[in-house]
């Protein structure tokens, strides 16, 4: 059996509602203690007032006795007892006989000692009514007379009721109104969260293009929706990228795998000598090596794009890398009929040395492959590194045919090989890695015309120059 409707239990589970409940509770505790304090204080005040009144009357009556003896005192008491709302009085002689009084049922021995105290009493004219509490003062007059003056203090409690009741009522009202208000506020919040949850569920179900609604109020929910949308944007881009990659892998890895398999099959069918088997096996190994290289390049790009390598970044001297790579490739370039020169200013970046060296090696490798002038004369590859403001600018330019403007965007995509290069060895991943590493380091990659030839410009955030400050 469910007493509380589902909607209410869900509401009670929301953070906003819990906060509201806690606030209300704290408020109630504060209010109650305040009311208790006020009530206690009021009571103190009233009691002090009563004591003062009583002792004032005692002094007055004692004065009457002093001035006119017992008759004047009795007369004064009688006159006072006839006033409405009068105090209570009792006067006895040394025998204990009552000379004047408007009370009955006083406890025995009350008059035995002077001083103030609380006692129950009943007025003589209202016998049978309930006993009231009174504050009394007993005073010994000369001649064995005892005077009691008291004041009913039940009204003290009435005053307290006057303060406490409405306060309690107000508190109850506040609690009820708070709960109702809280209910509506939380329901509004809940509605927005519900719509967010609904959208997220839709996205999880596969609709990656779904976005959360931003209602333009720029409140917390709007900001949350904004950043979630940005995150979704990024995830969608990654998913599209992943799909492209898997399509490309399907094509560009399956093609060489098929070739590999065909060749092995053919050798099995037609090879007749050991030498032919041998040759077939050797090409098989070569082709699997190139497949492994492609795999490694793909993994490297994927890692760079995932940004994991950021944890291993240190200060890297880019000029040392430029010199090293130039020195590594210079003999090869020379063999291929190209001069390789390097001009490097000292610049350091925050990065991964191996990746940056690999990137420059890829660029130089490309320049060696495609950088020879069309007329067959000796080519020239230039590596330039300079600092431009807060950037390290690394340029590799050659004197080859360059890349047509329409193709410049495309060449960084995975496995894209321009027609001119299809016949030469290469995986089509070199520039993809360069682009991915540039992004990883927070930099950019651009291609421009070196007239003639290609200029590749890699811009990376530079570290502040050391020793110059």
């Amino acid at each position, binding site marked *: 059996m469910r007493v509380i409707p589902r909607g209410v239990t869900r509401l009670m589970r929301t953070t906003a509602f819990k906060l509201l409940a806690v606030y209300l509770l704290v408020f109630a505790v504060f209010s109650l203690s305040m009311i208790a304090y006020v009530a206690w204080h009021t009571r103190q005040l009233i009691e002090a007032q009563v004591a003062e009144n009583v002792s004032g009357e005692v002094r007055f009556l004692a004065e009457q006795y002093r001035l006119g003896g017992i008759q004047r005192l009795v007369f004064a008491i009688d006159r006072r007892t006839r006033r409405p709302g009068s105090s209570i009085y009792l006067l006895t002689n040394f025998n204990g006989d009552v000379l004047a009084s408007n009370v009955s049922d006083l406890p025995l021995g009350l008059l035995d000692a002077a001083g103030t105290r609380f006692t129950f009493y009943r007025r003589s004219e209202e016998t049978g009514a309930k006993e009231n509490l009174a504050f009394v003062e007993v005073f010994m007059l000369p001649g064995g007379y005892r005077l009691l003056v008291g004041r009913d203090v039940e009204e003290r409690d009435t005053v307290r009721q006057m303060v406490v009741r409405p306060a309690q009522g107000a508190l109850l009202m506040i609690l009820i109104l708070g709960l109702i208000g809280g209910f509506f506020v939380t329901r509004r919040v809940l509605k927005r969260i519900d719509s967010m949850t609904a959208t997220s569920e839709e996205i999880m179900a596969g609709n990656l293009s779904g976005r959360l609604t931003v209602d333009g109020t720029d409140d917390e929910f709007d900001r949350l929706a904004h950043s979630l949308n940005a995150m979704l944007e990024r995830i969608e881009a990654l998913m599209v990228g992943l799909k492209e990659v898997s399509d490309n892998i399907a094509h560009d890895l399956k093609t060489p795998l098929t070739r590999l398999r065909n060749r092995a099959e053919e050798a099995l069918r037609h090879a007749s000598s050991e030498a032919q088997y041998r040759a077939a096996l*050797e090409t098989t*190994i070569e082709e*699997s*090596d190139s497949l*492994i*290289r492609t795999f*490694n*390049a793909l*993994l*490297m790009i994927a*890692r760079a794009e995932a940004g*994991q*390598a950021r*944890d*291993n970044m240190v200060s890297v001297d880019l000029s040392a890398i430029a010199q*090293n790579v130039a*020195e*590594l*490739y210079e*003999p*090869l370039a*020379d*063999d291929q009929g190209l001069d390789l020169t390097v001009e490097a200013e000292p610049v350091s970046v925050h990065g*991964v040395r*191996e*990746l940056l*060296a*690999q990137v420059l*090696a*890829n660029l130089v*490798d490309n320049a*060696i492959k495609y950088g020879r002038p069309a007329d067959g004369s000796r080519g020239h590859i230039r590596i330039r590194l300079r600092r431009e403001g807060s950037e390290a600018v690394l340029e590799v330019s050659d004197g080859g045919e360059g890349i047509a403007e329409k193709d410049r965007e495309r060449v960084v995509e995975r496995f894209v090989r321009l027609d001119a290069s299809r016949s030469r060895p*290469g995986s089509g991943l*070199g520039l993809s890695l360069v682009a991915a590493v540039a992004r990883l380091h927070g930099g950019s990659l651009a291609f421009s015309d070196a007239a003639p030839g290609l200029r590749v410009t890699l811009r990376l955030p530079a570290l502040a120059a050391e020793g110059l400050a």
Partner: protein
Amino acid sequence: MTLIQTSDDSFAMRLLLIEDDRDAADYLRKAFREAGHVVDHAGDGEEGLALALDGHYDVLVVDRMLPRRDGLSVVSELRQRGEATPVLILSALGQVDDRVVGLRAGGDDYLPKPYAFTELLARVEALSRRGGVPASETVYRVGDLELDRLAHRVSRAGKDVPLQPREFRLLEYLMRHAGQVVTRTMLLENVWDYHFDPQTNVIDVHVSRLRSKIDKGFDVPMIHTVRGAGYMVREGLR
């Protein structure tokens, strides 16, 4: 004609292979034996650790992912117990940072899978303290080729051969491992300190330049190309 080119015949090592993949282990045992080495095999990390601790091996070849105790933990445990046997770590993880982790755990070399056996063999032989020249030696000699590490001088048959600094380091590395196969990636790693794939034959061009300075005008070549594997410095023809 043997399938695998090996180094000096006189030089045989005792190896411990810790690898859980049965096929890979069988293949490697056979191939190492053909190359003239003695191989023990352990199929998991605990067994491997126990064998390594009392086996007196020349080199340990340890797969990174093993049952019962992973490869890196085997290596660091060995090092903690003061066991200094050279270790080569095999791993399917081949990125630069994985390599750093492997070497930090106490490995001496790191080879990502898949690899060519010639590469593994060359690296294992280079790790062994039996072959090559002790690193403390200041003058390396192979036949009439002499390299003075302190004076930075190289001479062949008593005649000075002027070399560029990088050529010097290249020859120095080749001569320290005289009689052993040195692969192109080993040269890139040890002479240039890069661990990337150079895609083209950059190293070959450097070696052929060096060769033209060392061997030109002499009947007996010093720098030999080992087909399908790399290079070797040794005196005379094989």
